[in-house]
Every structure is written in C-alpha cells, then in structure tokens.
C-alpha cells in the first residue's frame, strides 16, 4: 500500500490561537513553555478554563464579504492574511482553478447562531442579518475563503468533530494524487461557544483548571479556539512533506475511545504503511492528548504497542486547549515546525507524568532532529486520523 507519488509539500502555514496573534507569537509561546489557558471568557455557571483568541486580534470582514462576518471567519481572515504571499504565488503557479480549499470545522458559525437563537427566544424574531447559509452552516468558511482568496478549485468541508483538522490533510494528499488539483489550502478553524463548553462539561470531560494531558492526576480537557492553515502543493520547497495518513474508526462507542486504542493504533499503522515507513523511524508524536483519563490511557496504549516507550510523545493541549475541529490542523503546524526548527515543545502540565501510561513524555522543550513526526487526532464517533509528516530528506531517501 506504499504510495508511489512523490509526497506533497507543506509550503506555508499559519496558526492563531490562545498562544498568540500570529504564527511567530504562537511558536514563541510554545518554545518558551507559556500556556495560553485562562479562565473561560464565556458566561458559564461553573468554573472553566479555556484557550481564547484575543478579541483585539480580530477585525470585521471587508464590506464586500460582510454577509460572512462571524468570529470563525474573522479568525480565518487573520490566517489568510498571514499566508497571502505564498498563496498568491501558488495561485499564479498552478492557476486559481487548480487550488482546492479543504477545511475542517465543527462549530462553523455556531457562536453567532447561539446569539441569534437567544434573540429569537426573547423577541420571537431572528436578527435581521442572521443568515443560515452564510453564517451558520459549515460551508460558510469555505465560501468566505474561496471569495477572499480568489480560488476556484474544488471545495470541501470535513466535519468529523475533533479529527476534522487532521483529516483535511489526508484529503489534500488524496486529491493531489488523484489529479483533482495541484495545491490545497487546507486547515481547520473553530470558535469557543456555549454549546461546546457546556456540552463537554455535560460529558464530565472538562477540567476546571488548566488541563494536564498525560499527568497522573489529570482531570479533563479545556476547550480552546483558533485555527491553522497549511498550504499543501504537489511540488515545491517547504519544511515538510505529507508522507502518509491513516483514517480509521473505533466502531466502539460514540464518545469513549476503544480502551486499548485499537482504532488509534490502526490509524498510525496505516499512516506509516502509506508513507512506506517503519515504526522505528518515528522521531516524535504530537498526540491527541486531551487530558481526559480515558483518552490519554487509550492513546498511550496505542502508541506504546506500535512505537514502544522510547519515542517522545507530547500533547500541546496544555498550551492551547482542545481546538476541536481545528486541533488537527493546529497540531499539524506544530509537527511541521518541529521538523523545521529542530525542537519539540514540552508536554505542558504533564508533570508528574502518569507512569502507568508507559510513555516518554518530555516536560521541558527538547532539541531534537525530527525527520518523521506523527500527529494524531481522535474524535467522537470513534473517528481517528494520524498524519505522518517528514523532512525533505526522508522523501529523498524514499524516492
């Protein structure tokens, strides 16, 4: 099942979340071990910690796109502006109709829909500017991006809850390989909203304090917001290649992972198989690592059984919170940055680590020449994805 095509290249990326207003700030906070988690800014009747994007980092959409103006699309605008130059170059190189848009989101414009419904409950009327298709629906984000960036290639929203932002990279690779396009603007964006914060609380999955993935006394996750974009091209110069991806289901339970992490393990195995890699070549895993008892135990079992106990495994959710549909794309950026810059972040909050997990979880930043990194995202519905990123030298060996 090793794929013969040269693996596509990540030629540019951008991230926005609680760690900073742009990619440089985000990566600087990650390097320095500064968490973005703070008391939840939304009015909720319980103690909660969240990873929120600074309000003053966001600006209204231009008047011509005002119909799409949501917090989600304001964050997306910020990300688009950051990669404007490489995106413009890709559009000129391949043609606007050969650049696809494949984005993950789980909330889409739900934050504005909540407000609109609250207004309806009080007054019997939705706000005059509420628009189900342009603000609420999943395709609000792709329509906005396509218009803003002047792209006319194929478009898709992937929405598989918390694996959405990882699966977009699998789709990007697949579409380039099938010849549907030559480049894909991929990524994921999600916003904080009442529904997700209260919903995860209702599942007893939230920690009131900053989350501590892989720690012995971890008590749940925190919800975060933000997003990331990755420009993936058929050929080009970039810090990393998308070597492979594995996509599986647990077929076990809607919210609880398979206790032995069988689906997560199968996703990692498939990712390596498609990339033509052996487990011993994996230098680092950016884990899903939500900080719930069940997720971390199941994912650890999966990693340990496939990769052993020596590979450094990091969850970055102690920095950003769980970005849900944007988690996979955000952590893809962290994985590519690890390859590019030669360091892996601390797994913030993991001290003291849960020894029963049998993983090597770095508690401080480590200098590491990463050539192959796996990025895992695991979701409701038992939906799993693992994406393998590799340094350009890995590609040269495989060719």
């Amino acid at each position, binding site marked *: *099942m090793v*794929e013969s095509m040269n693996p596509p290249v990540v030629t540019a990326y951008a991230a926005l979340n609680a760690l900073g207003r742009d990619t440089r700030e985000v990566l600087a906070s990650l390097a320095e071990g500064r968490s973005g988690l703070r008391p939840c800014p939304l009015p*909720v*009747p319980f103690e909660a910690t969240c990873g929120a994007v600074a309000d003053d980092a966001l600006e209204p959409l231009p008047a011509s796109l005002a119909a799409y103006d949501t917090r989600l699309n304001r964050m997306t605008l910020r990300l688009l502006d950051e990669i404007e130059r490489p995106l413009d170059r890709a559009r000129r190189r391949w043609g606007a109709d050969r650049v696809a848009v494949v984005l993950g989101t*789980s909330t889409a414009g*739900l934050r504005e*829909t*909540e407000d609109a*419904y*609250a207004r*309806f*409950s009080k007054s019997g009327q*939705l706000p005059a500017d509420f628009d*189900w*298709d342009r603000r*609420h*629906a*999943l*395709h609000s984000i*792709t*329509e906005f991006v396509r218009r803003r960036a002047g792209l006319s290639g*194929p*478009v*898709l*929203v*992937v*929405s*598989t*809850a918390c694996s959405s932002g990882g*699966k977009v990279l699998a*789709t990007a690779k*697949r*579409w380039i*390989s*099938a*010849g*549907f396009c030559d480049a894909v603007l991929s990524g994921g964006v999600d916003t904080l909203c*009442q*529904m997700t914060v*209260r*919903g995860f609380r*209702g*599942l007893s999955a939230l920690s009131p304090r900053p989350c501590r993935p892989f720690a012995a006394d971890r008590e749940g996750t925190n919800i975060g917001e933000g997003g990331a974009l990755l420009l993936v091209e058929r050929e080009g110069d970039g810090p990393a290649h998308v070597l492979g991806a594995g*996509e*599986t*289901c*647990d*077929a*076990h*339970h*809607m*919210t609880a992972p398979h206790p032995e992490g*069988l*689906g997560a393990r*199968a996703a990692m195995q498939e990712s390596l198989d498609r990339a033509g890699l052996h487990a011993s070549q994996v230098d680092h895993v950016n884990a899903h690592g939500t900080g719930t008892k069940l997720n971390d135990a199941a994912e650890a079992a999966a990693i340990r059984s496939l990769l052993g106990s020596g590979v450094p495994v990091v969850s970055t959710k102690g920095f950003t919170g769980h970005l849900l549909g944007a988690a996979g794309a955000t952590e893809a950026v962290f994985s590519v940055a690890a390859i590019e810059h030669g360091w892996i972040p601390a797994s913030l909050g993991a001290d003291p680590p849960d020894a029963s997990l049998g993983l090597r979880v770095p508690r401080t930043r480590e200098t590491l020449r990463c050539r192959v990194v796996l990025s895992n995202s695991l*979701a*409701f*519905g*038992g*939906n799993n994805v693992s994406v393998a990123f590799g340094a350009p030298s890995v590609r040269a060996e495989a060719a």
Partner: protein
Amino acid sequence: MKPARVLGTGLWTPGFANAADWIAGRRDAAVVDPPAAVLPPRLARRTSLLARMAAEAAGQACPAALLHSVPTVYGSAYGESETLVALLGMLQRDGELSPTRFHGSVHNAAGGCISIAADNRSFSTAVAAGPDTVGAALLEATALLHERGGCVLVVLCDEAPGAPFDRAGLSPFAASFLLGDSAADGPALALLSGLRRGGPEARAELPPHLSTNPAAPALRLAEAALAGKAATVPLCLDDGGGWIADLAPAGAAA
C-alpha cells in the same frame, strides 16, 4: 478520473421507501419513519431522523457483509440540524445540555452510529459543501477509489432544521451510492464516468418540496443510475456553478 462502477443506490424520503417506489411514483403516506434495519433497535431509538435516514439509505445500497468493511463518505450540508435546534432550546431554558443530544449533534454522528452498528473500523468521513455537497462527496469518494481501490459507499442526507430556521423545500431526504472500481465487485447499474464543474447548467431540477434540500440532487443521480443509460446529471442545488456527473451505460466499461 477513472470511471467508477455504480453498484447500488438507495433512497428514502417521507412517502417513498426506496428508489424504485420513487421512480414509479408510488407514494405511500405510511412511509414517515425510516426502518434503518442496519441499526439495532435500541440504537435506532436513540438516534436522530437524519442518522436513521442515512442508515436506511446505506443499507439499501450496500450488502450487509460489505457494510462491515466499506469506506464511507457521508455528505450533508447542514447535518444534525434538528438536534442542534433542540440543543439551542436547552441552552435557553436552563443551559443544561443532554449528553446524548450533544454527541449526537456532530456532523459525523450518523457515520459513528453506523460504524458501531456494523462494526466497521475502516475509513469514514463526514463532509459538506453547501449547495454543492452531493458532487463534493462524490469527488471525495472517487479520490478514495483512486487511493485504495475496492468499494466506497457515499451517503447523502439533509433534513429540516425546525423553527426558527425552517425554509420551504427542505423536506427530509437521503440517498446513497455504492461505487466500485472492479468488475469483480459484481454487476453495475451504470458507470460514473466523470465529475466536472459547470456553470448555471449544473443546477438540478427538483420537486418543490425538495428544492432547497442540498442532498436532493442525488435523486437525479439515483434515477439516472437505475435507468442505466448515458446521461448528464446536474448535481448542484443552485445556479452558482457546481458539479455535474457524467453517467455511461455499465457495458461501456473499459
């Protein structure tokens, strides 16, 4: 794109229990709830209409044995919108959200349910593309066939969200297509020989009660596949430019 063999199709909408009844115009007022036999009764009772429609359509197009292993693409523009509106109501009442409703609100809820019921641990995705959802889901399915061969199941469904978001023309509708890349998979109804982008001509002609349901253009593809003749099938809900499918007779396989 390499032609894909359309091996089966399924359809469910209130009044019509399957594609054959739809094509024959046999409306049955008793068809109000999809039987969704692929879901165990206990699971079916706890799932939404959207998930049960999806399960019903999936079971019609795909043999039970294959449902255990087939990669599946679920396409829906709006997803679990009835569940979402119920949750919005809970937010307004006392802010307590039903955990079952909450995890049932994700876009991949139907896919998750069906994978559990069928013990299917292979690929599953849930996608959306607004008025162009049918074509975009088919595109992802053909990319999967290119990537891994074998069969891929595509399930398309959308439902009425409920007040205050209801609109005319959005009756519940689900359809499905089992695609394969090899004659060894059995006889085909037709070949999906191409997917291409069109302009205003990509707009599907739909009956009034389905005219704003983004999954409903799949109706025309199901009809054309069952007719088994060469056909050009517009797949987009509006005239903003979208996907068009080209169908060829099954015998036209290379």
